[in-house]
């Protein structure tokens, strides 16, 4: 089963990206990433640029409505995702708990939906 681990980060966590990389949050992520890859269950993952770089598009009555900033105005913003192949939700939750973001922000675990993809491909 494939799961997405969605890391929702606080502004402070996004700010840490500007550091020289020796801060503990970045070091913890570096180690976590290594553990993910070594586990053999890691399929893909990417960090996203900071939320301020987001632009949201809606089409209202045929008109483009472009909004500066992320879709939702919340304290914690999606900062990146990880895709893993795992035997169960329990295993995915274990990996989510180890994610450095779980201690400061939140990590949402969602199964991928291959059936939904199948309907459109």
């Amino acid at each position, binding site marked *: 089963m494939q799961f997405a681990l969605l890391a929702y980060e606080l502004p402070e966590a996004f700010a840490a990206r500007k550091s020289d990389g020796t801060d503990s949050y970045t070091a913890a992520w570096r180690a*976590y990433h290594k553990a993910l890859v070594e586990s053999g269950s890691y399929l893909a993952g990417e960090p996203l640029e900071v939320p301020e770089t987001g632009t949201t598009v809606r089409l209202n009555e045929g008109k483009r409505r472009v909004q500066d900033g992320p879709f939702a105005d919340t304290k914690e913003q999606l900062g990146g995702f990880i895709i893993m192949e795992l035997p169960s939700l329990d295993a995915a939750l274990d990996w989510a708990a180890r994610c450095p973001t779980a201690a400061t922000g939140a990590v949402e675990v969602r199964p991928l939906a291959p059936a939904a993809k199948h309907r459109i491909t």
Partner: protein
Amino acid sequence: MNGSVQESTHRAIERVARESYGRLVAYLSSQTRDVASAEDALSNALVAALKAWPGDGVPQNPEAWLLTAARRSFIDLVRRRQVAVASEPTLQLLREEREVMLPAEFPDDRLKLLFVCAHPAIDSSVHTPLMLQTVLGLDAARIGHAFLVSPTTMGQRLVRAKTKIRDGGIQFEVPQERELPQRLDAVLEAIYAAFGIGWDDMAGVDQSGRELAEEAIWLGRVLLQLMPREAEVRGLLALMLHCEARRRARRGPEGRYIPLSEQDSEQWSLPLIEEAERHLAEASSRGRTGRFQLEAAIQSVHAERARSGRTEWGAILLFYEQLIRISPTLGTRTGHAAAVAEAKGSEAGLAVLDAIDLESVSGYQPYWAVRAHLLQRLAMTSEAADAFDRAIGLAEDPAVRQFLLQRRG
């Protein structure tokens, strides 16, 4: 009614609920095998107590009051759910109920209930949650939180297990002599699992973690009261008490993690250590050793540092060598390697770690932490950094993560 009377009544209800919950659920369900209905009935009785007692005062025998109310509610529940699903013993109970008066004394069936919770026909991952719920009355949300699953999922697992108990022919009985050791092991394992979760769960910082460890010790005490002659029951209790004694010393200012070797032994709880020692001595006088007694013995050697100021690693190593013969788990083997390193040098310890199959440790954090520590001592810097990364990446507790990051340098 004034606030303080209300408060003291609430406290009385809490106390009775805590002390009697398992006894009442065990008694009600051992006759019918219907654990879920027994729990529902008891929670109805507790709600009734919350309503009645503040006005009427706490009854002279609160447990008997609760039992009467719970039985009445139990009968209502079963009638409503109706007879299609009711088992023959339940129907029997309903028939008897009309005539029989309440017994002033009712038997303590908690031991049977504990054996049912850890029955081999019940999935072992549910053993501990079932005990926490049926014997201690913890709700699915709290148990789910401790086990890192959602409350709904935990609720479903518990419901499935209870249905199996009711319909699967699982007997409420203490196992026969022949199968007792194995069945008892499952009970001990489940109690220890509750303790381990409470322990790992940011022990000392996270309130829910601490409480779960306390609940596990409570279960251990209940079990000892019911089986005072079983050495391993005392061994388990001694082990948990030794660990509990160090709780305060495990965290420094701002929740900093402090490993055992660096703990200030003056912060250890002497009364808990002494109690643990008494149980361990009593257990070993019975002459049959076992996994929990050995683990407690290792902790007992560590505790000795409070008196002598030093740790007898040679003694710890001997206990690990015995332990590994009867319980070669990853945890034991990792602990063994650490003891070898202290007693015979880091290289020897590393060789023990090297003998463990790498596949089996890819997700086991303590292995990588010990490995990193030994490599660092041997000045194998880049290998150490690698192992530290694995240990950091697999750590859940932010304080442990922070500690390892600092060690890694």
